[in-house]
C-alpha cells in the first residue's frame, strides 16, 4: 500500500502547478469546514460552561426566590432536602447557592450597615493601604469606599469594625467602579469559610433524576411540595428553573450559523470535486501509454482503477492537510474578533480528512473507471 501511495505522490509531483490549482478548491473547502467546526465547538463549549458546566440532561433545578430584596436569608433547608428526596424518580438532591457572597451586618460605634462580603480575591487594586493575601485566621478586612464612607464618612485604615459580632481591622480600601461588581468587604479565605460561608442561603435545589423519569412532572411536584411544606415558604416563592430553554435558543442560532457556513463549504467542495474529476480525466488520457504498459505486464483493471483512485484521494488529502493548516490560521485570526474562543477538536481534524478522502473517492471514481476499462490494444498503440 505504501508503495502505491508513493507512486501517487510521484505522479502528482510531476504536474505540481496543475494539481495545486485543483487542490485550491479542497483547501478552501476544508479550511471552511475547520472554521465552522471550530466556531461551533467553541460556541457550544462557552455556552455549556456558562451554564455551570452541568449535564442538565438528568437534572431538575428548583429555585427559591425571597419575596423582598431585603431578605436574602431564605432558601432550602435540610428538612426541605429530605422532602424533595422522597419524590418518586429523584435519585439525589444537592442544595446550592446561585450567589457566592454572604450577607452580614457591619457595626462601627453606633452605626449599623447591612453589607455583602466574600473571601479575598488574588488581586485587588486599593485606593488606600497595601494588598496582600491574609494568613489563615487573620482578622483583617478590606472594605469598599462606599462602606468606609457609610461607617466613618472618610477613608481611614486600622479602624476596628464588627461584622456579625466578630471584630476586624480595616487593612485597605478599594474603589468599586460601575463596570465591576464587587461585594462590600473581603476577609481571608479561612475566616470566610469558618464564619460566613454557611450563612449563604441555599436558594437552589438540584435534583438528580432517574434517566427515564418525567422531568416536567418531578419539577411540578417538587414546587408543589415546597409550597406546602417548605420551611421558608412564607418569605419566598419556589419555581422550576429551566436551563434547557436557554441552551435551546443558543443552539438554534448556532445551528443557523453552522448551516450557512456548511453550505459554503459544501459548494466549494463540490466545485473542488468537479475540478478533481477534470484533472483526473486529463491525467488518465495523458497516461494511456502507462496504463497500457502496466496492463501488459500483469496489472488487472482493478489495479489500474485503484492506482488512479489512490492518486485522486492522495491529491485531495494533500489539499485537505493544507486546508487544515489554513483553517488553523483562519481560526487564529477569527479568534481575535470573536467574543468567545473557537477551538479545533480532534473530531474536526478527523472529519476534514474523511471529507477530503470522500471527495477523492467520489470524484475520482468515474475517471479511474475509465482508465481501468480502456481497451488494451488501443492503449499500447499510444506513444
Amino acid at each position, binding site marked *: 500500500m505504501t508503495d502505491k501511495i508513493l507512486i501517487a505522490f510521484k505522479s502528482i509531483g510531476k504536474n505540481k502547478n496543475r494539481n495545486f490549482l485543483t487542490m485550491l478548491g479542497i483547501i478552501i473547502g476544508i479550511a471552511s469546514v475547520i472554521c465552522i467546526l471550530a466556531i461551533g465547538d467553541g460556541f457550544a463549549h462557552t455556552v455549556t460552561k456558562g451554564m455551570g458546566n452541568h449535564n442538565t440532561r438528568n437534572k431538575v433545578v428548583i429555585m427559591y426566590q425571597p419575596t423582598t430584596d431585603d431578605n436574602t436569608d431564605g432558601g432550602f433547608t435540610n428538612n426541605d432536602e429530605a422532602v424533595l428526596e422522597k419524590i418518586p424518580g429523584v435519585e439525589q438532591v444537592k442544595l446550592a447557592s446561585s450567589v457566592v457572597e454572604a450577607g452580614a451586618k457591619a457595626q462601627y460605634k453606633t452605626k449599623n450597615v447591612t453589607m455583602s462580603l466574600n473571601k479575598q480575591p488574588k488581586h485587588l487594586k486599593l485606593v488606600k493601604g497595601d494588598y496582600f493575601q491574609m494568613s489563615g485566621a487573620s482578622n483583617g478586612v478590606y472594605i469598599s469606599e462606599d462602606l468606609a464612607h457609610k461607617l466613618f464618612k472618610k477613608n481611614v485604615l486600622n479602624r476596628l469594625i464588627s461584622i456579625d459580632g466578630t471584630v476586624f481591622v480595616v487593612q485597605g480600601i478599594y474603589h468599586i467602579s460601575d463596570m465591576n461588581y464587587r461585594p462590600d468587604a473581603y476577609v481571608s479565605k479561612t475566616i470566610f469559610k469558618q464564619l460566613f460561608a454557611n450563612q449563604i442561603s441555599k436558594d437552589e435545589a438540584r435534583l438528580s433524576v432517574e434517566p427515564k423519569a418525567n422531568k416536567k412532572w418531578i419539577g411540578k411536584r417538587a414546587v408543589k411540595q415546597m409550597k406546602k411544606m417548605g420551611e421558608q415558604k412564607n418569605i419566598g416563592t419556589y419555581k422550576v428553573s429551566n436551563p434547557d430553554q436557554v441552551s435551546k435558543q443558543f443552539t438554534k442560532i448556532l445551528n443557523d450559523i453552522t448551516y450557512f457556513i456548511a453550505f459554503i463549504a459544501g459548494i466549494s467542495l463540490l466545485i473542488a470535486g468537479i475540478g478533481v474529476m477534470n484533472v483526473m480525466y486529463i491525467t488518465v488520457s495523458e497516461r494511456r501509454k502507462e496504463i497500457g504498459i502496466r496492463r*501488459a*505486464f*500483469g496489472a*488487472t483493471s482493478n*489495479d489500474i482503477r485503484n492506482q488512479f483512485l489512490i492518486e485522486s484521494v492522495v491529491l485531495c488529502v494533500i489539499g485537505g492537510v493544507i486546508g487544515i493548516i489554513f483553517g488553523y490560521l483562519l481560526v487564529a485570526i477569527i479568534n481575535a474578533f470573536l467574543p468567545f474562543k473557537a477551538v479545533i477538536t480532534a473530531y474536526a481534524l478527523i472529519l476534514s480528512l474523511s471529507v477530503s478522502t470522500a471527495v477523492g473517492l467520489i470524484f475520482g471514481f468515474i475517471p479511474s473507471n475509465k482508465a481501468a476499462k480502456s481497451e*488494451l490494444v488501443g492503449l499500447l498503440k499510444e506513444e
Partner: protein
Amino acid sequence: MLKVTNIGKAYGKFTALENINLEVADGEFLAIMGPSGSGKSTLINILGLLDQSYTGEYLLKNKNYKTVSDNFLSRIRGDQLGFVFQNFKLLTTYNVYENIEIPLIYSKKEQNNKRELIEDVIEKVGLKGKEKNRPSELSGGQQQRVAIARAIVNHPNLVIADEPTGALDSKTSKEIMDIFTKLNQDGTTIIMVTHDSEVAEYAMRTVYIRDGRLYNDEKSVKKS
C-alpha cells in the same frame, strides 16, 4: 508452447487476419516476417493475450483463454508472458530499476528476493550501474535492454517481441539479438516480429505474413 487453428480477425469490413494456423514448440525461437500493415502486430497481440476478439482457436500451453476473466488474463500475462515493443514503451518518469520492477508489482509469485531478481536481469542485459538513470539518459539500444530486462524479470515461458530492433541501427540490433539468442538458449520460447531478414536469421524458424495470411516459407508467399 502454443497452437493456433484457423484464426481470423476483422476490423469492421477489413480482414486483418485470415485462416492463420501456427504451432510453436517449447524452447523455439520463431521469427514472423512481413511488410508493414500485413497483420504482424495484430497476430502477436492475440498470441500475447492482449487482444481477445478473434475467431478460431488459440491454445497457450494447451489452455484456451478465450472466455476467462479479465483478472485471470492479467495474471497470465504478468506471470507467463513477457513483451518487448519496437519503441521500448518505458515509463519516462521512472528510472531503469523502477521500469524493470513493474511486472513484479503485480505478480502473485513469491518475491521476497525482488531486489535480487531485478539486479540479476540488469546484469544479464548489461546495464549494471545504470539503475538510477532515466530512459532519456540512455541510448536506444540501452533503452531496449531495459525493455528486455522488464520482459524477463518474471522469468516468463514465452517472450513476445514486436519489431524489437525496428528503432535501432544494425550494430545495436546485433547486440540486442545476442541477448535474445542467449535468452532462448537458457530455455525461453521467443516469438519475434521483424521485417529485417538479417535479424530474422537469429531465429530457428521464420514464418511470413502478407495481407493477413500466414506462409511457412518465402517461396510460397511469392507464388500466391
